[in-house]
């Protein structure tokens, strides 16, 4: 029954795609309806504890199940998708809109498969299909080949991480003979370590952590509604979800939690710095996603997967509207350069709603995102004071880039927008901003008590320190925004990492491939050519030894190659004068034989010659073997 949850949006998406472009109203209603239906299914599935199974064959099976954590994500995904799809139907280009909305629904289906998966094989299936969707969506405007190249970059980068999941899958099966998550608990030693770190690599790649971060920038070539879905509810968020979901079995693996924390913290600080420097609206947000996911990683590593998932949900609620708003501002300015914007006066509604989301990103109480960030800080504090402080610094960075984003995009300015948002766009933005606000309920004690998870205890001193740093961050962000200059530092392109990857991995590989191809044509192909040459030499000297040859296998080979050489010579003869002859008299030859055309005849004579010659030798050898072999 749980299969309905991933399958419904996926099939609806396929149908929508197949139905073709049409009026925005129709497409928007259908896509929105499909998302709403999925949301309903998700709620039902969570309430009634649906499960699913499917016999794959060969002793493998696929399992679906929901835990409280996964149910929360399973509801978040279609809820965010609903708003994003309605926005997209009103905002994106009419050409290819059906494909765009359909693919986004399929994307949600793949994400829901990942979320409901209860074994590694099902997980891998959903995980990789998400990769496909991201490729197709990032390259949505395919007439610009650079977009497709970015899609390919995203697919290949995240698939590099997927290899970690393959590794985990293989290690789990070989160690436990099964692939369900519980099998992870039966592993030990090297297979367990491989599985745990393989999963970490896969999660890190999807979540844009550490060295995998640059694909998030490239993914910005997709439409902004795609970015909203990709960052808030699917793909990127899946990385943190996966770690949280599998945390119970992996937490005790030596070195694993530490590695998760280090990766997350490093990314939260580095990507935060990148976001503070970025002058491109969407890339700024992309950097912030990577940083926020880093914070979720820290929460998981510190032993609070539940906190990570709460932050995932609050992050979804503010990151989706921010991307949608960036799309509106981008259309208004005709570019994503932040310094060309400034729409407080021209687009007051958008500016106001975006402010809510930006405040949530900055983690200003009483918004829900502030609570989840404070929980992460508290969890980090439990781990060590230094870690706690580092998380607070990361929080200050997020306040800085949030403030800078809002002030540049929607702060005071006299820019005249080239395009204005339609009411469904505002409505979608408003709904998400409302959700951001509603999540503020998380600050209430009874709500916290109802959460099905362990929470870290935080002191008021810590909250005070955190808020002080936040204020510093906000001020710094506003100051930076005021002093915005035309040139952004080179480091804004992910601290030079993309260039390093290009020079250190991509180009060397391309050179290697070219070299390999050349070797393949020259050296490897020399094997048959050399054999033919050798055979010719042998043939010249070995005519007299013909009779003795047949007994020894090495010489038999030589004999074969002698024939090969002879036929080659024959063929050359045929290819030279033969060709001229047959080209000159095609019809004549055809008439003489009365059957096939001229060249088939030429082929046939050449062929039957060597074919029967070699077959004859083979048969003779066979008979000789039968005679002498038996004796």
């Amino acid at each position: 029954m749980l299969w309905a949850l991933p399958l419904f949006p996926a099939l609806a998406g396929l149908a929508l795609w197949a139905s073709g472009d049409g009026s925005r109203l129709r497409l928007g209603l259908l896509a929105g309806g499909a998302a709403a239906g999925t949301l309903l299914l998700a709620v039902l599935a969570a309430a009634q504890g649906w499960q699913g199974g499917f016999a794959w064959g060969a002793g493998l099976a696929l399992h679906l199940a929901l835990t409280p954590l996964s149910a929360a994500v399973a509801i978040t995904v279609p809820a965010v998708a609903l708003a994003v799809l309605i926005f997209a139907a009103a905002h994106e280009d009419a050409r290819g809109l059906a494909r765009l909305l359909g693919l986004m629904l399929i994307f949600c289906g793949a994400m829901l498969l990942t979320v409901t998966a209860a074994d590694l094989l099902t997980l891998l299936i959903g995980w990789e299909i998400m990769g496909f969707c991201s490729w197709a969506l990032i390259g949505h405007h395919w007439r610009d080949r650079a977009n497709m190249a970015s899609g390919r970059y995203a697919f290949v980068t995240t698939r590099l991480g997927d290899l970690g999941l393959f590794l985990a899958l293989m290690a789990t099966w070989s160690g436990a003979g099964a692939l369900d998550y519980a099998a992870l608990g039966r592993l030990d030693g090297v297979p367990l370590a491989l599985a745990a770190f393989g999963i970490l690599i896969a999660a890190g790649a999807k979540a844009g952590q550490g060295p995998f971060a640059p694909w998030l920038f490239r993914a910005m070539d997709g439409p902004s509604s795609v970015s909203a879905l990709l960052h808030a509810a699917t793909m990127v968020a899946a990385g943190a979800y996966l770690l949280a979901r599998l945390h119970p079995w992996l937490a005790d693996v030596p070195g694993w939690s530490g590695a998760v924390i280090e990766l997350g913290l490093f990314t939260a600080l580095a990507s935060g710095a990148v976001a503070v420097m970025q002058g491109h609206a969407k890339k700024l947000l992309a950097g912030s996603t990577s940083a926020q996911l880093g914070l979720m990683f820290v929460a998981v590593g510190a032993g609070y997967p539940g906190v990570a998932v709460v932050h995932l949900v609050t992050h979804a609620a503010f990151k989706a509207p921010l991307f949608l708003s960036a799309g509106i501002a981008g259309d208004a300015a005709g570019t994503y350069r932040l310094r060309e914007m400034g729409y407080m006066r021209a687009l007051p509604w958008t500016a106001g709603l975006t402010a809510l989301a930006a405040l949530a990103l900055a983690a200003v109480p009483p918004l829900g995102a502030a609570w989840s960030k404070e929980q992460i800080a508290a969890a980090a504090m439990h781990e060590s004071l230094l870690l706690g402080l580092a998380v607070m610094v990361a929080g200050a960075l997020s306040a800085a880039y949030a403030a800078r984003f809002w002030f540049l995009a929607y702060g005071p300015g006299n820019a005249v927008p080239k395009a204005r948002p339609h009411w469904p766009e505002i409505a979608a933005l408003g709904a998400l901003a409302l959700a951001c606000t509603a999540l503020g309920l998380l600050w209430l004690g009874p709500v916290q008590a109802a959460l099905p998870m362990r929470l870290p205890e935080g002191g008021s001193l810590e909250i005070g320190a955190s808020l002080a740093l936040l204020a510093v961050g906000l001020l710094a962000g506003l100051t930076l925004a005021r002093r915005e200059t035309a040139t952004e530092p080179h480091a804004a392109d992910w601290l030079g990492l993309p260039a390093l990857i290009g020079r250190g991995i991509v180009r060397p590989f391309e050179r290697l491939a070219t070299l390999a191809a050349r070797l393949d044509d020259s050296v490897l192909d020399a094997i048959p050519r050399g054999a033919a040459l050798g055979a010719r030499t042998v043939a010249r000297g070995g005519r007299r030894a013909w009779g003795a040859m047949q007994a020894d296998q090495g010489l038999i080979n030589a004999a074969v190659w002698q024939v090969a050489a002879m036929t080659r010579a024959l063929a050359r003869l045929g290819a030279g004068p033969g060709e001229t002859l047959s080209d000159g008299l095609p019809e004549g030859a055809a008439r003489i034989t009365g059957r096939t055309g001229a060249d088939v005849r030429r082929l046939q004579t050449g062929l039957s010659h060597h074919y029967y010659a070699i077959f004859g030798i083979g048969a003779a050898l066979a008979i000789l073997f039968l005679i002498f072999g038996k004796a």
Partner: protein
Amino acid sequence: MLTFAILLPFAAATLLAFAPLSGGLSRAIAVATAALALLALVVVWAGFTPGAGFQAEMEIPWIPALGVAWRVGVDGISLPLALMSGLLFIAAIAWPMEREVNARQYYAWFLFLEGASLGLFLTLDLLLFYVFFDLSLVGMYFLIGRWGHGDAQRAALKFFLYTLAGSLLILLAIIALVLMTDPLTFDMRELIALQPVAGMDLRAGLILLGLVIGFAIKTPLFPVHTWLPPAHVDAPGPASAILAGVLLKMGTYGLVRIAMQMMRETFATYALAIAIVALISILWGSIVAFAQENLKRRIAYTSVNHMGYAVLGIAVAGSAVTGHEAARDLALTGAMVEMVAHGLITGALFLIAGAFWARTQDYELGHYGGLAGNAPRMMAAMGLASFASLGLPGLAGFVAEVQIFIGAFAIWPWLAALALLGLIVTAALFLGMLQRIFFGDRPPVLDGFADLSRTEIGILAALLALVVLIGVWPAWLLDMIGAGAALTFGGG
């Protein structure tokens, strides 16, 4: 019924070769014949009991003194391959000819090739196996040399001589193998039961070497694969599809049926060496394919990569490491699915490549661009096939590869881990290919580029539907094969 499936195409080929029929009628007869042959196979499938060994057997004595007879029968190994071949032959025959010359002979040779191919998979006699193996070379030689383009004759000759050299090694090995039996028999079932070279030292190794080199040429594996790219590039699309889809499988099928099943002990001794060759093929094939600027060469090299996966699965299955029966079973099932999947997927890709040639006479990737606009059906078919080929879940290639990887990891973890790298390279190269053909700006010369015709898209839809079906619901195929896999290890 199996005999009917083999002989009917031969009979129809003879008819087409001599009766003065029109091109259209020849085509109709050829398609009908191929469909009937497949129907016969489906009837056999309907009565097939997974796990019950060889079935639908028939035996007619031929040369009793040598133990040679007309023997046919299927098990879980050969039935899926025969069914896939039957389907692919219909597709290739029904596909529009690239150059409409001598249609009658073209279809005659295709049917001849189909008879030989089905015969190879269905026969249970080793001598007939060899005969069919060689006859398939003849059929393909003519199809490439006669209806190919470019330097077709040179490519055809290279293909022919190279693989014929391999088949001679196979012949020698077969004879040596059979000579170990007393009384002489070419019966595959008896040879599997007898294990004629069990316990022998060097001679057994030499026999295996002959078989492996011979089949490696056909498969093809690194470093004896260089005949493949020119043969594909110059072959007409449908012939390429059969070459990749059916003929390459003869190599891997031979490895399973003869090398692995009849020489279990010897094969296990050298399984690691074979696995390493397979690993090199996986990596080399994908890396070299990545650098190809020619559409068909690029697809051709991915065959080296994919067949490397299949051979890796076979090597794992034959490794006979005790305590890992489940892993070996999984690997062999995976290898079999890989063969079927590769047949369907690469068959489709080569047919599409043929469609490109028919429209532009050009395989250079650099000359294309922006075709998604005026050829959306082509884009859909090629996109689906490409993603299937790079192993996207939900499509057939993934089913095969994930099982091979899981099985291989249990036996040789480092080897499986290295083989994973192939997944990245194939992803990059297929996406790059799609990007360059279908996206970006369209060169003005391609403005009149026609999308796939109704016939073409119908044929591709049938092949790709199966790719999707295997991808989302593999159980039926895995069950059919599983039987054969169990049989391999004795008794089912």
